[in-house]
């Protein structure tokens, strides 16, 4: 990890003929290792944040993660591994090649747009975790929450604008410090707990393998868990930073897949062994749940240390989301002129700084509304419904593009060919559609409100942010906004 990033202008033109084949090293071009990319992918998708909420389900948490892994994670990972081993640039390029360029723009727009509402909620969680460490009373203070969100987000923008290398290093470090090490500690302590002869707090017998079936509510829980794995494809935008992308990306993806499963399942189980479900309800927060866990071992002082580690993981994950979709948006916009030249400008590190700044301004406004307008913060959860609906459009387009690319470009060099691709894509499409439909079922937070009103709100958000805004960009585009860039872009790489 001792080299620089290069501007996009220094892209590897040698890759144009065969983008996914191993390219000769070009002076100035820097690379990242496949393991770094695996860590970035894992960091984007998984952390320990979900462990307490899933521990409530006890042994059924395994089912709730494994079934979605079969029908959503495996199709997503294998299909994106094939696509990334054949085409640089990530989801916009796959969809552009497989369906059309406007659809490619729609795909990357949806991937980008949904993150705008993700950051304030993620950083509000960081703020409440920090508050627990410093002074718990701060968690209900709007000014404190606003300051934390704005300062951390803009710090993230600043780090991202230094290039992919800085992001790769911090995201990998965040994963190791904030997820892998504390996750291992949780699992070891969990086994120690059982090894001491204590009975598991959650029943671990065969009758608890399946979750409770109560009809629609259970279906909502199971299907919504498909989305636990969303984001696996996002870091494919960095594929050309690998020395040998056609071989290394699949390796990176499979490693990330294994890590994500381990991070989700084992810590949740460990927490369920030690802390009874009702105690988790008493603890009223992620960090408080870990406090309960550590208190059983008389190492409560580990809780604030753990809190800081969780914050590191959350911020590392945020950096990958800042760096990924905005880069994809830039690449297609430069080729097709979908964004005004101002937004296409690169800084001296070859990073889409103006897109990041524009995103930062919007996020700042949303964060201030979240922190200071009670009606916004109380209803903020609905944005996570809308944004996940928007994200599902990406998957629908990706799976459709993969099927078409096998048909229209069967001989295009691919370093990895997913087995039974059509089956994988059909399963992925059906899973995505199921999640899209389930997204219209009102959740707990909506209470006893009108179902029609709920469907109306979600549909309006989906149409407005997911379709109308990219349509406006598309119709307002100008040929003069196009930049002279390689049709087969290879991005600035990093060394890690």
């Amino acid at each position, binding site marked *: 990890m001792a080299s620089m990033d290069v501007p996009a202008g220094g892209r590897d033109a040698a890759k144009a003929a065969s983008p996914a084949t191993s390219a000769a090293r070009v*002076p100035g071009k820097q690379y990242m290792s496949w393991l770094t990319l695996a860590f970035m992918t894992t960091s984007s*998708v998984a952390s320990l944040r979900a462990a307490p909420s899933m521990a409530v389900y006890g042994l059924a948490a395994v089912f709730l993660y494994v079934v979605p892994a079969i029908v959503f994670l495996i199709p997503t990972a294998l299909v994106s591994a094939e696509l990334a081993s054949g085409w640089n640039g990530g989801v916009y390029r796959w969809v552009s090649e497989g369906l059309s360029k406007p659809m490619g723009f729609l795909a990357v727009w949806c991937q980008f747009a949904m993150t705008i509402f993700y950051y304030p909620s993620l950083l509000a969680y960081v703020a409440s975790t920090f508050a627990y460490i410093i002074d718990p009373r701060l968690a209900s203070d709007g000014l404190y929450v606003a300051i934390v969100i704005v300062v951390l987000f803009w710090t993230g923008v600043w780090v991202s604008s230094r290039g992919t290398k800085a992001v790769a290093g911090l995201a990998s470090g965040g994963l190791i410090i904030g997820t892998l090490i504390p996750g291992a500690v949780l699992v070891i302590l969990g086994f120690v707990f059982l090894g001491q002869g204590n009975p598991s707090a959650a029943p671990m017998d065969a009758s608890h393998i399946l979750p409770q079936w109560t009809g629609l509510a259970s279906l909502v829980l199971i299907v919504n868990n498909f989305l636990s794995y969303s984001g696996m494809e996002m870091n494919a935008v960095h594929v050309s930073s690998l020395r040998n992308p056609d071989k290394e990306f699949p390796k990176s993806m499979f490693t990330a897949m294994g890590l994500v499963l381990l991070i989700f399942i084992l810590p949740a189980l460990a927490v369920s062994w030690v802390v009874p479900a009702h105690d988790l309800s008493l603890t009223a927060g992620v960090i408080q749940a870990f406090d309960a866990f550590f208190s059983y071992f008389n190492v409560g002082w580990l809780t604030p240390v753990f*809190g800081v580690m969780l*914050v590191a993981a959350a911020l590392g994950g945020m950096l990958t989301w800042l760096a990924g979709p905005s880069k994809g948006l830039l690449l297609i916009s430069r080729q097709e002129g979908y964004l005004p030249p101002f937004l296409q400008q690169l800084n001296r590190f070859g990073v889409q700084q103006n897109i990041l700044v524009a995103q930062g301004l919007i996020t700042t406004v949303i964060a201030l509304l979240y922190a200071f307008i009670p009606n916004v913060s109380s209803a903020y959860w609905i944005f996570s419904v809308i944004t996940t609906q928007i994200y599902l459009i990406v998957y629908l387009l990706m799976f459709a593009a993969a099927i078409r690319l096998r048909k229209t470009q069967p001989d295009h060099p691919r370093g990895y060919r997913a087995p039974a691709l059509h089956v994988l894509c059909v399963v992925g499409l059906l899973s995505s559609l199921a999640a899209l439909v389930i997204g219209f079922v009102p959740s707990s937070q909506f209470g006893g409100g009108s179902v029609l009103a709920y469907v109306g709100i979600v549909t309006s958000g989906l149409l407005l942010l997911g379709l109308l805004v990219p349509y406006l960009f598309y119709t307002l585009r100008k040929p003069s906004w196009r930049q002279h860039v390689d049709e087969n872009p290879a991005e600035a790489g990093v060394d890690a």
Partner: protein
Amino acid sequence: MKRTAGNMKRTLMASEHRWIYIGSIVLLVVFAVIGIIQYTTLRETAKANDKADQLSKQLADAGYPVPDHDLIVRTLGDDGASLCRDPGNALVKAQAKAALVNGASGPGTRPVIADSEAISAASLAVSVYCPDKLGEFEKAYGGLKYDDTVKK
């Protein structure tokens, strides 16, 4: 070896990135130390012990597993901690609602229909630690939709 502009830039970048990494680690360590100091300065009080005993009894009467006494003291103190700290506050409600979600920890996080007992133990705790805020608590969370999604 000839020192090219590229090499110089690379060195500058490496140096800058090193400072970003070092700065991040220093900040994390500082916050961890502050957290440990804060954590260890919290003291058990007679009132906290008394409240924990009351809650243990109420939980047992309601048929719920009773957590370790020290854990209750540690988690809820003598004032109910986060449960009683302005339960009607919009930001507190937003965080509580954000916890009733699927198993995602990234942008795939999405609300679900939570288990009907998700707040029952918490409601008992509020009635013990800050009964004056029980109305506010139930107004904030009682209107949410629940179902039996956890196998008992």
